[in-house]
């Protein structure tokens, strides 16, 4: 490792919670466990976050390798450019998802060398036994990435799970169509189980699957309850920390480790609230991270916000759970485990539909922002537009416009860079924009 890289690694973001500080080693251990699984001959799957196959994989002892996570690590370590350039040399456009480009560049290089690329971050990304994509109503790369990866690993099979949810429409309620959505998702999950049994050579343990589903439900509830604690003034934990605590949510779901992590975080937040201990000593502005994945190489920007008196008690990004007891369906009464997963999935994505329908001109995404703004006593909105990702970064401007039209005009800031490609980022410019935004907040407060 070069001295320059070591210097960059030293500039780590400081966390407000002890729990968030534990995440780095946890991720490192997670990557190491995949490398170890390879040595031990355990089955490994390339996987995406938020595809609801967590319990299925774990019930079958399949070791997940989260490709978005690995690309994010490369980005956070500021060591992604060489993999992006490798992908570009293979004729992939640099305007495509840079998680995918980083992963594809890595895979192409690894397969070309017959071994890990030199100084691969945290030991590297192993060649998998299977790749599990997904066809949702978002994220083309989840549908295309593994197909493209087969160009370098032609013998690694892909299963693309269809995981739609009903769109929010004016002329019909989603409940009118949810029946055939559930039927489809269940069939797709059943197909996934058959695919894994065929390629991994191990039968599904259905009892264990049910247990893991129950664990996941309980974990969802706990996460929701824990994050709701952040409503407190001063807020004990910000979005900077949540970009760490997303790890158990999206990479460790259906494990006792994830549940235990949030139990500890819950206790820690309760303790901080009891002692009126906020993320920063003098909380002046409460902001919402209202959309967009973070620039993984620039997480210290959250500390910069903190230095200007701003905290983020809430975010929409990676808060990909609701309390299942708030759904309009009792999941515990569903006996088929795959149907249970399907209903949880559908109810999550349609959770804000009813609320949005009650406010003229509203929309579920906007309604969620409004609810958080009120619950968490928010003064302003910050979003991030990552140029390479259309999935999470299209519609942000529109949401702000809708918010202004149907609710109120909130101070807002849209930062621009990327999730992985550091060449898109300018620290001085970013911080100047943050300064200007804080000045606006200050002017409003002093009116």
């Amino acid at each position: 490792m070069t001295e320059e890289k070591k210097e960059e690694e030293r500039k780590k973001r400081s966390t407000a919670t002890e729990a968030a500080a534990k995440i780095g080693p946890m991720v490192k251990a997670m990557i190491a466990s995949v490398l170890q699984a390879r040595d031990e001959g355990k089955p490994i799957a390339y996987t995406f976050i938020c595809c609801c196959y967590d319990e299925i994989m774990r019930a079958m002892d399949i070791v997940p390798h989260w490709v978005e996570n690995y690309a994010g690590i490369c980005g956070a370590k500021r060591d992604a450019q060489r993999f992006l350039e490798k992908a570009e040399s293979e004729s992939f456009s640099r305007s495509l998802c840079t998680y995918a480009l980083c992963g594809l560049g890595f895979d192409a290089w690894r397969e070309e060398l017959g071994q890990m690329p030199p100084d691969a971050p945290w030991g590297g990304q192993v060649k998998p036994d299977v790749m599990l994509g997904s066809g949702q109503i978002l994220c083309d790369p989840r549908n295309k990435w593994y197909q493209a990866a087969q160009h370098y690993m032609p013998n690694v099979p892909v299963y693309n799970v269809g995981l739609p949810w009903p769109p929010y429409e004016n002329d019909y309620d989603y409940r009118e169509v949810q029946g055939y959505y559930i039927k489809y998702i269940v069939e797709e999950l059943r197909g996934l189980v058959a695919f894994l049994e065929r390629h991994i050579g191990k039968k599904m343990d259905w009892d264990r699957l049910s247990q893991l589903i129950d664990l996941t439900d309980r974990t969802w509830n706990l996460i929701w309850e824990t994050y709701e604690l952040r409503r407190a003034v001063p807020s004990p934990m910000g979005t900077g920390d949540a970009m760490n605590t997303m790890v158990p949510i999206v990479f460790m779901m259906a494990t006792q480790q994830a549940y235990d992590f949030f139990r500890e975080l819950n206790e820690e937040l309760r303790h901080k609230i009891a002692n009126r201990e906020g993320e920063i000593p003098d909380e002046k502005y409460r902001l919402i991270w209202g959309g967009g994945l973070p620039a993984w190489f620039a997480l210290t920007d959250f500390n910069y916000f903190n230095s200007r008196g701003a905290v983020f008690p809430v975010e929409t990004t990676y808060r990909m759970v609701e309390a299942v007891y708030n759904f309009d369906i009792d999941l515990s009464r569903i006996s088929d485990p795959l149907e249970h997963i399907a209903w949880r999935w559908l109810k999550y994505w349609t959770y804000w539909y009813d609320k949005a329908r009650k406010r003229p001109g509203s929309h579920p995404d906007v309604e969620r922002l409004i609810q958080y703004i009120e619950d968490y006593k928010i003064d302003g909105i910050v979003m991030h537009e990552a140029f390479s990702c259309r999935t999470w970064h299209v519609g942000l401007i529109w949401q702000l416009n809708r918010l202004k039209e149907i609710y109120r005009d909130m101070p807002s800031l849209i930062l621009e860079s990327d999730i992985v490609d550091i060449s898109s980022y300018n620290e001085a410019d970013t911080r100047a924009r943050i300064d200007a935004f804080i000045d606006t907040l200050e002017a409003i407060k002093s009116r």
Partner: protein
Amino acid sequence: MAEKVAGRGLATANKYYQDYGGRARELKKQGQRIMGYICALVPVEIISAAGFVPFRIKGDVNEPITKADSEMETIVCPLVRSCFDMSLKGKYEFLDGIVIPHACDSICRTYDVWKYTLNLPYSHLINMPHATGDSSLSFYRAELDTFKRSLSRFAGREISDESLTQTISLYNQNRAKVRELYELRKSSPPLISGAEVARLLVGVVGIPVEESTRLIDDVIEEVKQRGKVLPTKSARIMVVGAQIDNATFIDLIEDSGAWVVVDDLCPGAREFFSDVAVTPDPIDGIAERYLRGIYCGRTFREKRESYYEYLGQRFGHIGRFTKEFKVDGVVLYIYKYCDPFGFEVPAMKSYIESNGTPVLYLEDEYSMSTIGRLRTRIQAFLELLGSK
């Protein structure tokens, strides 16, 4: 009965191309209802059967994108941004509604932006799955039923199986005419230029299908009558990409000394070379065709035995076209921010090249400002083909 198209075929096609939307505006004034849609994955048969004139929303490569940026991020596919920009600027003020398919992120993720900003009387998102297995087909079929019910409510009339069967027949006739047109491109030199075909096909997706079929027929007759008037050029080119809704790029290639003799584009061979099968329940045939019959990068097909077979499954039609149309070189022309096609490039390129056809890959931004750079690349590619 639709109006008789006035004038000769190519001149009329050029008129519709230049004044895109003009005919729809006329029809609107005459009391017809116009339903806008984006992308060839919208089943126009259903829209027609509901009594609407389907109208493909297109962008304008000559018009700088200005208004769209106040609602839509610049990381969206530039063609979609241009379409939205033109809509905001009132170019398609005659629309009664809009139908958007789950085609790609740029189209699907902007659905709400279109819906809320244009505030048209009707809007609908067709949630098309990516995979093509039997469960996906059943789901998609149910989605089309939902769309049919929704549109029927808005139209205030039932969409009967009879009317669907009739519109299926009309669109199949239309597609057959386009295939007949493409036959005229097989000779050397071709009887019709690539730019003439592009203008015609872009123009006809903005007029009623009966008029479209008659116009294509007029063009075929006119071209046959004029005979071999086009000069011989150095190379025969196939253009592959997502959607090209203008003739500028085709003009560029043909002005550089080659003919564009076939394509895998929308509008183009991708959407006109597969028919809807006539089935007892017409929705079955429509679902099958739109999910499995259109070879678009956004659709995921299950892998066959070997990887090479899989490439053939995805890109075999391109290989067949290169042989049938005696193609010397393929240009992959893909817009920036196009994830479905961008991820295809290495595999597609290697498949075409493995069949002995050279490939030029170009990424563009849907802007006239890049013409100079593109011309240089095209000229260099044609020189390379000439030296072989």
